[in-house]
């Protein structure tokens, strides 16, 4: 009997063990799946980052190079219709484009007919004639002589040179036809075509011609805007943080201010644009499109970020430092200014740089205050109309010419470059001055 009971119990245990084993493998399976989902989300996030940066870098890299054509220019006074280079009227009225046309005609004597001549003349950028004019005015002795000059090519030529034109596409669907391809191929074969670093991109303002458009205007505009933002938000931000952390009595009003700051940090940036439009432009009549107004709006927007991070870095200064200063007879203000502030400064700077990076990438509120106008000039003061880098990206992304896609990506690369530098400085500051108490 005992044997039988024992067998029954053993069997029962065996069954139970089997069931547990089955369940266990199921549970382990779940565990594995869960872990896999976690891994997969990270991979998705990182993949997207790689795809985003990859797309932009591959599209934008070509912007930093531009194609140039070597032409033998004969500075023919008769062709230009000018005899005296010091006579401003003559210089202004002279038909400089004739020089380029003549040079192209000499290079390709076989081209005839209106249509083909026009296509031939289209190989050089319209900016080329200004290059020639500047060269001649800088060196008047060139008049009547001949020299080889590298001139900027048209954006379609540039696109072909960068392999963005597919010759297998039916000719009618291309803006660059087989005749022009033939011409360019001849130039390439004879070494009269080259790619060089595109300085125009960094020295020119905006333009409707892709090969002439540059980001200098936007960069200077961004610089002025950030200057205004920094010079307002840094002092105001740290003063507010000092007050709230060190001086504010713990009462309702202080609490209201604190809640307010936290809420402002979550207000959509476009609402700050509405504020800027209604208050700074309509009420105070500040100039539209000016970096000054942009800087004011971005100041209000970045203040919460700076205040919050400054407060946490003041909080991190141990009370013993304050007590020591107070014990030696320093006043509350002296304690804060002479002892707490210097120790909290690296943290505050880090917060400010991150706030500035946020301001540099911000677009929406600046659209509201009119920084979206087409402005070809480079601004000279914070009161001149201008645009900023992200808005320039937005403006270019709307344009139909294919070359502007590359321009946009190029501008984004410059923008990301600046942001990366700012963030690296912030990380460096944090690492360098981080103190453990």
């Amino acid at each position: 009997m005992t044997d039988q009971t024992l067998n029954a119990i053993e069997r029962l245990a065996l069954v139970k063990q089997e069931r547990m084993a089955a369940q266990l493998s199921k549970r382990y399976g779940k565990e594995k799946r869960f872990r896999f989902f976690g891994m997969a989300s990270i991979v998705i996030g990182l993949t997207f980052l790689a795809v985003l940066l990859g797309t932009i870098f591959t599209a934008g890299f070509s912007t930093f190079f531009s194609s140039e054509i070597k032409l033998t220019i004969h500075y023919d006074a008769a062709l230009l219709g000018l005899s005296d280079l010091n006579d401003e009227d003559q210089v202004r009225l002279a038909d400089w484009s004739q020089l380029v046309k003549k040079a192209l005609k000499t290079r390709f004597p076989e081209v005839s007919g209106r249509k083909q001549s026009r296509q031939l003349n289209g190989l050089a950028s319209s900016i080329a004639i200004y290059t020639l004019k500047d060269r001649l005015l800088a060196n008047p002795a060139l008049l009547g002589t001949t020299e080889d000059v590298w001139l900027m090519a048209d954006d379609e030529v540039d696109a072909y040179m960068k392999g963005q034109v597919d010759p297998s596409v039916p000719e009618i669907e291309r803006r660059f036809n087989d005749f022009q391809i033939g011409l360019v191929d001849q130039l390439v074969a004879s070494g009269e075509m080259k790619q060089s670093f595109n300085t125009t991109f960094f020295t020119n303002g905006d333009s409707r011609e892709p090969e002439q458009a540059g980001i200098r205007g936007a960069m200077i505009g961004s610089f002025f805007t950030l200057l205004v933002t920094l010079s307002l938000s840094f002092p105001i931000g740290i003063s507010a943080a000092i007050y709230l952390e060190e001086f504010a009595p713990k009462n309702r009003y202080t609490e209201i201010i604190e809640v307010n700051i936290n809420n402002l940090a979550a207000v959509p940036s476009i609402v700050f644009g509405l504020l800027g439009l209604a208050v700074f432009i309509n009420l105070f009549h500040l100039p539209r499109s000016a970096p000054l107004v942009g800087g004011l709006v971005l100041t209000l927007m970045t203040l919460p970020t700076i205040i919050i991070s400054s407060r946490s870095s003041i909080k991190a200064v141990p009370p013993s430092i304050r007590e020591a200063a107070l014990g030696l007879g320093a006043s509350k203000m002296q304690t804060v200014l002479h002892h707490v502030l210097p120790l909290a400064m690296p943290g505050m700077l880090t917060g400010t740089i991150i706030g500035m990076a946020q301001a540099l990438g911000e677009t929406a509120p600046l659209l509201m205050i009119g920084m979206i106008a087409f402005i070809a000039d480079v601004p000279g003061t914070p009161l001149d109309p201008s645009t900023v880098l992200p808005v320039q990206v937005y403006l270019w992304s709307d344009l139909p010419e294919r070359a502007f896609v590359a321009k946009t990506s190029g501008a984004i690369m410059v923008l990301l470059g600046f942001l990366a530098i700012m963030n690296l400085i912030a990380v460096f500051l944090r690492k360098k001055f981080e103190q453990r108490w």
Partner: protein
Amino acid sequence: MASSSLFLILILIVLVVYLFGRKRSEILAQAVGGVRNLHSLPNYYGLMAAVWAGVPGLLLLCAWLAFENTVIQNMVIAGMPDHINSLSQSELGLVWMEISNLQLGAMSSASDPSYFAAIDRLELLRSQSQIGKTVLVLSLTVLGGLVGWRLIRPEQKARNQFEGVLRLLLLMSSMIAILTTVGILFSVMFESIRFFQTVPITDFVFGTKWSPQMALNAEVAGSSGAFGAVPLFAGTLLIASIALIVAVPIGLMTAVYLVEYASPKMRSIVKPLLEVLAGIPTVVYGFFAALTMAPQLKTFFENLGADPVSSESALAAGLVMGIMIIPFVSSLADDVINAVPNSMRDGSYGLGATRSETIKLVVFPAALPGIVSGVLLAASRAIGETMIVVMAAGLAANLTGNPLEAVTTVTVQIATLLVGDQEFDSPKTLSAFALGLMLFITTLMLNIVALAVVKRFREQYD
């Protein structure tokens, strides 16, 4: 004198007053037996004198700059003939515009002969104001400096006074946050109220047709634009939900993996990389959504046999926006999951639970309030996001739930209505402010609820 040079002179005077004040305190100190018998250090006497010199002058200068134009404008217009003074406010604005253009020489012929008299008056007033400003500001500064200088006595509590001034300055800085909120509220409120006077609020909140374009004259059929904002709210919700559907699971799982499974080394590499996603400007995401994502999705779904997919689909904007918020969700979730004490995990392991069971049954419930508030904040982010939708979502106000169609959002409409020239008496422009008010209230609510959830349901561990 130009305001900038006036400002520089003012600073110079303040500097001189500081030096003199400091010197005076040192001289006075000799009479009472050295600096140690003064109430404060000489520096503070100088600073206090500088405050006396600088503050009144600066305040006057600011006030002058703020009100100069308005006062001159009113005076010029008040001096004009009656038939102009009887014009309405907006017409007066036009008159003023013409006068300033005439004065700048941008126009040569005036529509009314009285304008030329007005220009003379304007120029006279401007030069008078210029002189008045220079004289008054400078004399006030010098006077203030003298007062401050006279006040210096050994028993003057210069340090306490100066610290009081500083403290006031700090207080005022912290008030700017409140001023900003008040400014936002008032600027959107006023214009919204004007808007709701022409368009009833019920039409705005419950209307299902949105076409803010006003016809040029009343005779054209359908001239009154329709201001039913429901399609905008629906579009915003659609895009924000797509974004959250992408961001919440991915963000949460990322945070879980990084906190619970990843080695410290992997964490230190992956976390900053993901945070790069948060640092990329939204305009870049918009560019990517419009130029890469949207065409890809279009071809993909059309190959699947879907109806012609819009090239400005809600899906593209929503997906990219979702990716943008992933780091936001994951870093918030990361914090709250990290805050769950290890003793709870150990207890669960001790009872034989696997890691994933521990996470699902112990860690998640404990971290839930924080996660919910993080998701709410992410939602407020998604609703207020502008550039991605401006670039990748459409302008057509479709009332649809199909993510492959083009929809428009509140932020897109605000941006398009207010870019370019605006007249501030047309409902078209004012409607943007009404939308802004809605946006502000919604995000504020989400934020307040998010904070309240954390406060109300947070478990206290020690």
